[in-house]
């Protein structure tokens, strides 16, 4: 699955890992993240992410 990188802080969202802190289970594609999900490192919104 496609990884996405935060253009603000460089964090990479890996669908295989999800985002446990925000209760996003492993296997969740970036497109399926809730609209109000934010970067766990810097708080940037989804539209700040680009495909890696």
């Amino acid at each position, binding site marked *: 699955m496609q990884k996405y990188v935060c*253009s*603000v*802080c460089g964090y990479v969202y890996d669908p295989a890992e999800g985002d446990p802190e925000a209760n996003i289970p492993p296997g969740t594609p970036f497109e399926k993240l809730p609209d109000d999900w934010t970067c766990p*490192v*810097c*708080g*940037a919104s989804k539209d*700040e992410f680009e495909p890696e």
Partner: protein
Amino acid sequence: MNSTYRAVRISENVYWVGAIDWNIRDFHGYTTRRGSTYNAYLVIADKVTLIDTVKAPFKEELLARIASVIDPRDVQYIVSNHSEMDHSGCLHDVIDATGPERVYASVMGEKTLKELFGERHNILALKDGDTIDLGNMALRIVETRMLHWPDSMFSYLESDGVLFSQDAFGMHLATSERFDDEIDPAVLEYEAATYYANILLPYSSLVLKLLERVGKLGYQFNIVAPDHGPVWRKDIQKIFDFYERWAVQKPTGKALVLYATMWHSTELMARAITEGLASEHISVRHLSTDANHRSDAAYEVLDAGALIVGSPTLNNNMFPAVADVLNYLKGLRPLNLIGASFGSSGWSGESVKQIETILRDMKVEIVGESLNAKHRPDEEMLSRCFDLGAEIGKRLKGKVRSGS
């Protein structure tokens, strides 16, 4: 004897109680030729509040300046707007010395301070829009994540119209003057731009959003009090306007030619490219990496529309100094540039392609063909360099005209 360190009153209820670092010349790779200050502020409210602290070796200076106004044990709240160590390095010692009732930071700030210094003190986390009640006045919190650390926040003292803006709107400048209107405006603009280019440039898209957001809050700004350099009380709108211009990075008719040279061949090429650019009335900054520091290159790239980089090939690589500056500039993520690479070599000539790859990574739109000269650039090669400069100049003028 009273201490020689005194506080400076900046508004009815606020004192500057920071420290002046006259001698610092290097700030993790950014050369600070005029030194710096670490600003901290004391709000004399029912709940006396200290905003930020200073770099660890300056703790006594901070405490002495506080003591020139009140007994440091009367500090009841400490607010940490920014966890970077030049503002938090002595935070725990200051907590021990003042014994405040509460210490505040942003959600990310609380996390960062714990990661940096352990859980020595309980720090209360604040969210965007929260207010700290100081009894007879209020401090409002504006989260500014990634400007320029995840923890960063502003705090705003409504009664005096003071924005405590941590690293935003600051500059590395050690002076005996505390206010913008006491300092040469050309020095202020140069140092504020250098600071923006070297520290805030990568977060320009967030700067624009923040300026819009802060504008909508409807706050009255009588004073903008950053964590470095002078306090703005006169030209507040001017520094906001500068930030907007620097963040947008609209192309201007200015080019930066950056290069190293070994036996003057790459230098001859750089000169020919510079002449070509100038023939199109482009304002050229011509910087050899031997004579200029990476933070000067960052300052020049801030409002440049073109970046042209050259290097000889040394042991199948670009010159170390060129790699240093390019790596630094890449991290600063300047926008809207066009450019090219060039160089000279005795045999294989890898540097030119290496530079071009980095420029492409930086999303620089490459103009023309990269040029590599074997040993010495002959007349034909120098003429191609001149033409490349002129071509970049023409393209740049077109971009400036179209405004994108």
